[in-house]
């Protein structure tokens, strides 16, 4: 039997599955909380259906939404032969369907993948990243994005955010409810607290916890995409140097450009915003050190002598 140089990261898988479970649990907490507050489980279920429904809608439209947010356009093999050639080869190596290829005309060096399934995915790069990276580094970035596609990250992240979406909508609704229904005594429960206040507190708590958990999940998914991408190209060092260049480049770009791309930040290869406060807790991407450390481990395994 041929030896394998692939090291599975069971710890990462376990942590990721735990976070996904907790996010599901959070939706249950929200449903039960709202159901108890109204003493009507139907309303709780309605909230769940609304949150999941909106997430599924976002997921099904994800390619259009993200392409629009980044002002990207699809390019044909004639327009970008090198890019298409690289993706052709990577898809043949990974045995996956070839996604559509897009280019966004912005100087921020970045890349993202989106789309509802591997069959209907888009991989998009900015003109900034095309100018910044060498062919090898670009290939590492594309392999990372293709791994996002293979891992169905858009599906996972949007469905995982349904608790947050429902809670966010409820928070808004509860504010209106408190404003218009505040004087209405019929809304009160046994404790004398207004129903809308309870809903507001529950949804705010769910929203805050879901926000943090989603960021944790996002970081784990980035690490998983780095791993799979590095194993696909067999050049972890190229992805590493690309990450160094990109994160360095992003910090040098003026703040004004950065805010305009913040909406699509979670889908990008490197975060388009460089915040300092609570950085480790709320960042969508793992730290550069963490990512390089993982790539170095893979590099060691790939380079280990056979005999």
């Amino acid at each position, binding site marked *: 039997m*041929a*030896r*394998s*140089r*692939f090291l*599975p990261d069971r710890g*990462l*898988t376990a942590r*990721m*599955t735990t976070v*996904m479970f907790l996010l599901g649990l959070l939706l249950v907490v929200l449903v039960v909380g709202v159901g108890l507050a109204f003493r009507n489980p139907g309303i709780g279920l309605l909230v769940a259906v609304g949150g999941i429904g909106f997430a599924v809608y976002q997921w099904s439209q994800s390619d259009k939404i993200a392409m629009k947010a980044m002002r990207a356009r699809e390019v044909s093999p004639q327009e970008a*032969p090198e890019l298409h*050639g*690289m993706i*052709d*080869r990577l*898809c*043949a*190596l*990974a*045995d996956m*369907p*070839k996604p559509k290829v897009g280019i966004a005309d912005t100087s921020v060096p970045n890349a993202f993948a989106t789309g509802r399934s591997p069959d209907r995915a888009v991989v998009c790069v900015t003109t900034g990243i095309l100018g910044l990276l060498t*062919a*090898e580094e670009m*290939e590492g970035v594309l392999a990372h994005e293709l*791994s996002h596609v*293979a*891992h*169905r990250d858009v*599906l*996972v992240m949007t469905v995982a955010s349904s608790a947050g979406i429902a809670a966010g909508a409820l928070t808004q609704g509860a504010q209106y409810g408190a404003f218009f229904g505040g004087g209405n005594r019929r809304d009160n429960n046994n404790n004398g607290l207004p129903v809308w206040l309870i809903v507001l507190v529950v949804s705010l708590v769910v929203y805050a916890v879901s926000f943090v958990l989603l960021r944790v999940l996002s970081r*784990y*998914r980035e690490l*998983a*995409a780095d791993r*799979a991408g590095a*194993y*696909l*190209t*067999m*050049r*972890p*060092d190229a992805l590493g140097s690309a990450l160094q260049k990109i994160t360095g480049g992003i910090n040098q770009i003026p703040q004004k450009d950065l805010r305009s791309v913040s909406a699509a930040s979670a889908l990008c290869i490197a975060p388009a915003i460089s915040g300092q406060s609570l950085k480790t807790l709320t960042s969508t991407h793992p730290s550069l050190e963490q990512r390089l450390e993982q790539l170095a481990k893979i*590099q060691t395994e*790939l*380079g*280990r*002598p*056979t005999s």
Partner: protein
Amino acid sequence: MGFWDAITGRSKPKQANLDDLFQVPSAALTLQTAAGFTPTGDGSVCFRAATGAAFAQSQAEVVELLRSTPDAPQVDTSTDSFGFTWIQVHRPSDDTGGLVTDLHAVNTTLESAGFGPGLLCSLVPFADASGRKVGLVYLYKKGTFYPFAPTGPQSRDNLLELQIRETLENELPIEPELSGWMALWGAPGL
């Protein structure tokens, strides 16, 4: 990769399927009789060279192995613009069986060293009397073949490719998705 493995981010590198390559010699006979294309005697394996000393060692072993056989073929190594390495073997044009055995030796050596996931494709070029060339490409990850007929630096003869597909349909597993018929501009031997 299953759905659950995908959403938990546990994708593994895809292993290569090596066995179907041995169907090439009989397909070569069909191509010769039905379409007038004869093997040029060349053949190549295209793979991604991993970083590090281990891969360099394996690649050196491959070339050494090919050159150590009694009727050693001529072996060339080159790197294309996409960073993939091609090992090209030259044999007499009537020895397709020996050629495929050589290519298989490359595959098994790389696979046993743990670099099977780096194998991209192998290519066996054919030519007809008027000088037209077509390559029979084997995709290791899908286990399928497709014809590639370049006519210039960035153009290919789609009609000829489809005709070859018709000819070989019953002999070889042909890649069903036309989008998977990757262009290999500047491939050695074409």
